[in-house]
């Protein structure tokens, strides 16, 4: 098993290197030479050519492209992601302070998704073809088909503007820190993100439970007199959740994509909002820092999924 995981980790590192080459290549494609941008054409005089050449040498832009790549990669690996063109702050610091709010929102909404999807999927599978099944599929299809940002705007319209029950933006009211206040800020982003994530998950739980319901051990358990509820909760659910756990780990990157949208709608001070602000301001160092951070997160989620898959299911044999 160790050999398997080491191999998977090595593949991930290889993929990360490929991605970093891709990001670097994109970065080089970006319009505008950084030095040219420092010195607008109208400010150029006779000595400008010399200055530009000197500045390019100073920044290493005159070196071969692969030397530039390794310099950039070396800096990135040692945590030096450059400085934001907008605020002048270190990209590492900027990303660092945004991770907390995003992880908080994502973690809780993932929990909510699971709390919706497992009972709903189980119910739909056990009552397959009956009213409860159709009701569950209407709910999950609704979650899959409605754009989450539209639900967010609708939520703001109803609960913030018409009813005045919930705040529409941010994590807390400035200058007023209380548990109730931060909870009221959390409710709408959490519920919408959790609901959006539950759609696909409900379908997985349902089909996974249906697949297990036909297993031999179910018949055995029934034959020895285990009650129907007992069979489902003690035997079927435990086995059915094995593939679902992997799916959950694999869905983490997608959840972050959902968080980007919801953070924008609710002005939640997380990674997504930072990324969109960086996009709007064409703040290249922040965009690239976000891309690298996100790529690492994706590959780590994939590794976690592999690891869970092997840990949870003793039947899986590893090559």
């Amino acid at each position, binding site marked *: 098993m160790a050999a398997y995981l080491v191999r998977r980790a090595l*593949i991930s590192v290889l*993929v990360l290197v490929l991605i970093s080459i891709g*990001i670097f290549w*994109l*970065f080089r*494609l*970006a*319009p505008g030479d950084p030095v040219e941008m420092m010195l607008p054409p109208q400010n150029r005089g006779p000595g400008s050519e010399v200055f530009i050449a000197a500045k390019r040498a100073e920044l290493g832009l005159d070196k071969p492209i692969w030397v530039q790549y390794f310099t950039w990669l070396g800096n990135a690996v040692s945590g030096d992601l450059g400085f934001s063109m907008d605020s002048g702050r270190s990209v590492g610091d900027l990303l660092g302070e945004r991770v907390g709010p995003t992880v908080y929102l994502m973690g809780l909404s993932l929990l909510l998704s699971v709390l919706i999807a497992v009972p709903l999927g189980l119910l739909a599978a056990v009552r397959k073809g009956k009213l409860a099944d159709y009701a569950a599929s209407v709910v999950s*299809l*609704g979650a*899959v*088909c*409605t*754009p*989450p*940002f*539209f639900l967010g*705007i*609708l939520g*703001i*319209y109803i609960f*913030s*503007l*018409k009813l005045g029950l919930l705040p*529409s933006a941010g994590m807390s009211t400035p200058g007023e820190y209380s548990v109730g206040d931060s909870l009221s800020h959390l409710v709408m982003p959490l519920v919408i993100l959790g609901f959006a994530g539950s759609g696909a998950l409900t379908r997985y739980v349902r*089909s996974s439970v*249906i697949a297990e319901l036909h297993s031999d051990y179910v018949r055995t358990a029934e034959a020895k007199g285990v009650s129907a509820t007992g069979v489902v909760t003690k035997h079927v659910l435990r086995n059915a959740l094995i593939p679902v756990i992997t799916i959950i780990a*694999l869905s983490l*990157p*997608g959840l*972050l*994509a959902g968080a*980007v*949208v919801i953070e*924008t*709608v609710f002005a939640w001070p997380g990674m997504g909002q930072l*990324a*969109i602000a*960086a*996009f*709007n301001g*064409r703040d*290249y160092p922040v*965009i*690239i820092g*976000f*891309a690298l951070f*996100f*790529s690492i997160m*994706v*590959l780590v*989620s*994939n590794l976690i999924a592999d690891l869970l898959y092997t840990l949870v299911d003793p039947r899986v044999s590893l090559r």
Partner: protein
Amino acid sequence: MTESMAAGAAELSAEARPALRSPGKMALRRFLRHKLAIAGVVVLLLVIVTTVFAPLLTSFDPTRVDLSQVRQPPSGEHLLGTDGSGRDVFARLLYAGRVSLLVGVFSALLAVGIGTILGAIAGILGGWVDSLVMRAADVFLSFPVLVVMIVIAGILGPSVTTMVIAIGVFTWPGAGRVVRGVTLSLREREFVQAAQAFGARTRWLVVHHVLPAVLGQVVVVATLAVATGILLEASLSFLGLGVQPPQPSWGNMLTDAQRLTVISQMPWLWIPPGVAVAITVLSVNFVGDGLRDALDPRETS
């Protein structure tokens, strides 16, 4: 549309199981029994007709600014009111539908095209090619298009073409896996082995044996990919990463609704495009489910 798909299904299974009714007619019957799928087809046709014939349904130009008609509530003249620049929202909604549907269709075609080719090659050749393609599929699948587009659009600038390509390139694994699965089982069949024994090349095998066999399932995957494409277009354009104003799309019509005054004072600006996306995507999904039941009767989910 349905008939030609059903006809495709007829070709692929005609020799497999002789029946009193032709398989194509049976598939059509199964599809027609699916009430939600029929409803989906009707709604979808309605959406397509209204967007295609938009110039006949409204006399307003969706991009024409009229500062004397700013922020009008819905009325007889402006069915869904006007936006902050005095543009007619109903006209924008119809023309936006064209863009959103086209993005959905083209990104789905691209995704399914890449996925079918790579999946078929992986399935036929097997070995390291198969491992490589499936590993790549895992990687592509784990990167959400939205995040990829933040990076691409952030560096290269947003455009509709970039968006369609990004959606296609990052959603191909869905079709790829389906096609690979069918191809793997096909490879064990005698007629394929016979063709291989006669020296058939990979290309010939893919065109003559794999593609006809996977057609039904690919159509289902493609339909669902259209739904994904429309949803992604909405999210991307909403964030400013996709279709750029003044060209309207269902996603970017909601961009203005990030301001509280717009949300509260002018619901006619943001409710119609949001509902349009939800209804269209729901219909496409229903049609996809109906097609799955019709074309792939083995898998009754």
